[in-house]
């Protein structure tokens, strides 16, 4: 193997112990790998364990069996070196900090000097110029997620982890944010793992889509997305996009006969 994958998940199983003492298998023998600079989406119905995969890569959980490596190292080592960027569905902005301070937070957490120019550049990149001094509660849901994404990018992380970042937004804002993220990502080209249940979002943003089944989570299909970058929003109206979208929606649906 001449190039090591940016993220390698090998034969990972994850079991949780429930309150009543019984065990629950969330993930069963999952393997996937991301090349450097690749944008991969985990697509699946809710409760399929896709967020658990992301949490394993983020070192927020440990696998029950198998290994997770990021750049050949344990994920916890990367988080210690402040080289992971993350955005959740809960924007997780600190309500007592303004937009600029929230974006600068990872510098302070890492004990580094705040690079004001970098913060200002990111505020411009995510289209929030003029809102530097606003508090999170004064922003709309979409604007909060822009802040969260800028914060995830501020330390130039090796790996960007996005867990349903637009899950709480309405459909129109969500499409707008997809287009924005595509533009932002094309400028940075950071290795990215996105978790979503939205087929259109997955198709428009990713290089590769990993479709998961639910309970326990298993990989059912891997789809390569052929659209060239940078992507024009117009591709969402193309026949190929619709065809792939129907195909993926079907792959997500439970097999006939099941409830």
């Amino acid at each position: 193997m001449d190039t090591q994958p940016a993220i390698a998940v090998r034969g990972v199983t994850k079991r949780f112990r429930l309150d009543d003492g019984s065990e629950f298998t969330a993930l069963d023998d999952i393997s996937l790998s991301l090349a450097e600079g690749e944008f991969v989406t985990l697509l699946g119905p809710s409760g399929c364990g896709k967020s658990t995969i992301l949490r394993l890569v983020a070192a927020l959980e440990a696998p029950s069996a198998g290994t997770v490596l990021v750049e050949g190292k344990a994920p916890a080592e990367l988080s210690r070196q402040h080289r992971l960027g993350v955005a959740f569905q809960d924007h997780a902005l600190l309500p007592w900090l303004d937009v600029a301070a929230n974006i600068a937070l990872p510098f302070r957490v890492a004990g580094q000097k705040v690079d004001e120019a970098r913060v200002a550049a990111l505020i411009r990149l995510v289209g929030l110029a003029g809102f530097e001094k606003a508090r999170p509660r004064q922003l709309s849901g979409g604007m909060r997620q822009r802040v969260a994404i800028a914060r995830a990018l501020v330390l130039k992380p090796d790996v960007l982890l996005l867990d349903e970042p637009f899950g709480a937004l309405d459909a129109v804002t969500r499409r707008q944010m997809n287009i924005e993220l595509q533009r932002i990502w094309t400028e940075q080209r950071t290795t990215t793992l996105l978790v979503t249940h939205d087929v259109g979002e997955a198709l428009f943003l990713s290089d590769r889509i990993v479709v998961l089944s639910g309970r326990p989570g298993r990989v059912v299909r891997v789809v390569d997305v052929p659209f060239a970058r940078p992507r024009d929003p117009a591709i969402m109206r193309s026949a190929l996009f619709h065809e792939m979208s129907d195909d993926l929606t079907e792959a997500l649906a439970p097999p006939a006969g099941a409830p």
Partner: protein
Amino acid sequence: MKAMTRFFRSSWGILAILLFWQLWVGLSGVNSIVLPSPMGMLRSLAADPALYLSSTAQTVALAALGLVLGVALGTGLAVLTWFSRFLAGLLTPLGIIFASVPVVALIPVLARIFGYDMRTVLAIVVIICFFPAFVFTGAGLRALPPGSADLFRVLGASTWRRLVLLALPAAVPDWAVALRLAAANSILAAMVAEFLMGTSGLGYLFASARSDFDMEKALGASAIATVISVLSFLLASRFEGWAGRNWR
């Protein structure tokens, strides 16, 4: 004119009480030794401002110092329990019990232990302010914005930075609640302690005026204590409101 109507809209109750009191004293013709009127009380305040001022200064200084020390100690211990789950589990139920106990009833016990002097008044105020600060700050340090705990773990925050950048700021609204409770109690506790032990300050002024049947002076001391309590309550409420608005 607008300001006047606003004042009456919010203060009619207090004005009515004062008016009713003044009229009752005037019409029923009770002796001022039994029940002085609000006007009589004001005359007494004007007659000897130096006496009231020195007593007030002493009580306020003790209450304020006790408030600062008690809240600082309570906050400090809460931060220590934040570092250790064991310590938190051990001390939190004890703190909750003490915070829900009528601590004022402990004043006589503390007076016996520490002796009848000003340091005891201070110790009492410190102890009374300590418990709410400990309980509320302890809860606040763990009331984090949704997702922020995960965020700090992924960002690889050290324990120290998690405390300074996340837990401490997150605790500010709860800490402000504790401060409001403690501020209101600190004046009351200082005054009760001074009253019971007869040391000095407003509580003593009140007790000695009462035993001299100088009710106008006794009520003057009460009125000052009330004004200070109202002011500290308003100040602390304002801080609490500000913290709630800017921290959540």
